[in-house]
């Protein structure tokens, strides 16, 4: 049992204190790798120094940040929290992904105004703050009339990062950050956990450092990106990584080339990233003189009311059309939705509904409200209409059967309703955004094999309503997870800013019941909000 108020302890790693016959490297031993529960002696015998801290969060991205923010506001001092991960700044990975997928700092994200990872209250919302600070009546009108007479207000990426930086300084985030890679978390014999950190070369005397904690939070983000199989095959067989790119990898060279040479680009996918990439291609054409022809390949072409199973005529369990009360707008290939889930998953009816569902029923509702979608935005509609009219934007419906090189170009053989047609293009941008299985991530794989972690109805980490990883309890210790790796649980919108806050709120409340941190009741909440507003430490 770890005393939560105890200061950090680093036991001696002096080799003379251990059995002389044993090699002391401070590295993991085979015995450790094969053992699900580690004793203190097992870790110490390997020469790995042990750091005691009540709470560690693994990831160091926005998931870790938001959770730590909640705990700090609940009165937990920085000395009782360690953030383990490779990122210098919590928004680093997020900023990289948004930037390459065509949302640089001045552009707007697809995120609700009140969804503020730097402010647990969501008040003032990004939109309200922007409208009042700059006395921008257009923004205030947009907030008032969205989504009926205006597109949803969404914040600028740069503003989100700046505000995160402010909050990060306010809560003393850097004091809690320990840089390094975490691939193993094991349960400790006697309660709690060992989290093994591999610090950067030269940062510590030993190869590994063990964090012994009562609580662990895992927020490692997307396990990885998966390419469409035919794209991956083409890339490896032809050793061509220039002409076929994924929207989530750096591909600025494509746009640069398009500015110089009139070309044809195939864009694949019908989601937000496809919309973004199309906007970039169309902006370059309309504002900067590129002569790009765009072929937009849809696998599923949405032509009207739809749900996660597709159009009205598409097969769905029980047959029939989308249910009367579950019909999403759609047209021109796209399914339209403001954010990446129907809004009420973050606090309303759908959230309440999913919280009660188990197994198949839950998976079914996920499917029904899921499906690729993008927001309806005035600018995008205008650009696409112009492109269709002038003949440089051509939507095609079908599946790619084969891809062949043809000189510097690529021939896509697309199976359509009218038979297989060849489409020759200079570049293919894959915006389908397939995610890899959670077992692709080494830490999650280890947790599945040795940590007692199970999979939920959609195959990801199985968390309870409190975001505790089911099956991982260790004595009085608890392990939690949040973010995209927990998709499919009792709360649907996990892989979003607001979802991370919903998770953090549940985790904080659960930790409070276990005696870690204070309750954030109306008084504490209000006082803490004023501190947030004033920019003083929590």
């Amino acid at each position, binding site marked *: 049992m770890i005393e939560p108020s105890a200061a950090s302890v680093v036991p001696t790693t002096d080799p003379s204190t251990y059995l002389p016959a044993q090699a002391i490297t401070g590295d993991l031993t085979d015995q450790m790798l094969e053992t699900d529960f580690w004793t203190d002696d097992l870790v110490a015998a390997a020469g790995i120094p042990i750091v005691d801290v009540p709470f560690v969060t693994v990831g160091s991205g926005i998931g870790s940040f938001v959770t730590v923010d909640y705990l700090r506001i609940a009165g937990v001092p920085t000395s009782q929290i360690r953030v383990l991960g490779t990122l210098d700044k919590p928004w680093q990975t997020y900023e990289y992904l948004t930037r390459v997928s065509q949302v640089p700092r001045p552009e707007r994200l697809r995120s609700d105004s009140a969804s503020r990872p730097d402010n647990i209250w*969501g008040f003032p919302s990004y939109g309200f703050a922007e409208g009042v600070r700059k006395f921008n009546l257009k923004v205030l009108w947009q907030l008032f009339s969205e989504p009926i007479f205006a597109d949803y207000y969404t914040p600028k990426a740069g503003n989100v990062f700046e505000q995160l930086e402010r909050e990060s300084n306010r809560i003393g985030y850097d004091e809690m950050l320990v840089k390094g890679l975490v691939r193993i978390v094991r349960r400790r014999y006697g309660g709690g956990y060992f989290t093994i950190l591999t610090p950067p070369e030269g940062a510590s005397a030993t190869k590994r450092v063990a964090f012994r904690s009562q609580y662990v939070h895992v927020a490692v983000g997307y396990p990885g990106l998966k390419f469409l199989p035919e794209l991956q095959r083409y890339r490896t067989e032809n050793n061509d990584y220039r002409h076929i790119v994924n929207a989530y990898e750096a591909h600025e060279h494509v746009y640069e080339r398009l500015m110089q040479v009139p070309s044809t680009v195939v864009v694949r996918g019908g989601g937000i990233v496809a919309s973004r990439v199309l906007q970039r291609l169309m902006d370059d054409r309309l504002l900067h003189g590129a002569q790009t022809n765009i072929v937009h390949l849809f696998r599923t072409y949405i032509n009207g009311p739809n749900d996660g199973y597709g159009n009205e005529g598409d097969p769905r369990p029980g047959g029939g059309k989308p249910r009367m009360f579950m019909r999403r707008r759609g047209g021109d290939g796209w399914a339209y939705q*403001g954010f990446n889930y*129907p809004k009420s998953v973050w606090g309303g*009816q*759908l959230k309440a509904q999913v919280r009660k569902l188990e197994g198949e029923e839950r998976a079914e509702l996920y499917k029904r409200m899921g499906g690729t979608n993008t927001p309806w935005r005035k600018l995008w509609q205008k650009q696409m209409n112009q492109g269709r009219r002038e003949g440089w934007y051509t939507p095609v419906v079908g599946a790619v059967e084969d891809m062949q090189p043809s000189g510097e170009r690529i021939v896509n053989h697309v199976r359509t309703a009218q038979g297989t047609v060849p489409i020759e293009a200079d570049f293919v941008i894959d915006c389908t955004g397939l995610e890899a299985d959670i077992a692709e991530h080494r830490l999650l794989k280890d947790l599945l094999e040795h940590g007692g972690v199970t999979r939920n109805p959609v195959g990801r980490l199985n968390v309870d309503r409190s975001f505790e990883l089911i099956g991982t309890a260790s004595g009085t210790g608890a392990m939690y997870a949040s973010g995209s790796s927990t998709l499919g649980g009792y709360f649907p919108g996990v892989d979003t800013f607001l979802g991370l806050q919903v998770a953090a709120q549940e985790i904080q409340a659960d930790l409070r019941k276990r005696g870690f941190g204070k309750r954030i009741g109306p008084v504490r909440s209000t006082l803490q909000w004023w501190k947030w507003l004033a920019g003083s430490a929590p």
Partner: protein
Amino acid sequence: MLPTLNGRLQTRIFMLVVFGGLITLALTPILPGDPDYKTTYIILATVLVLGIVWELIYHGIQQFRWEKDWPTMFGLITALNEGALVWLLLDLELVPGIDGVPDFWAFLIDFSVIWFVVWIWTNGPMRVPFIRWRFFGGRII
């Protein structure tokens, strides 16, 4: 707003009791037509009781929205139908406990001020003391 039915009802009652109660207390002495507290509080209670029925209707309308949300604007413009109905009942002298027809401007001022304050409060500041409120469909308990 992302209300559930339960959350709608709880928020409605909370807001009208707290803000409606306080604002009516402060405004009644200075309203035109010199209404007494009995009259203004009976009108407030009428708004509350009818409001519960209205919430059931709004919940029904919300089911036709894919997002199952209740846009910010709806929260303000529903003042029109609700206010009109209450005034109609007052004008027809169908509200028990009130003799005669109260001053229209007194009603309009009290009703509008309460509605506007509640609407503003619901769309932001409420989240400060009650951090779970917005994630639980507007439920307070």
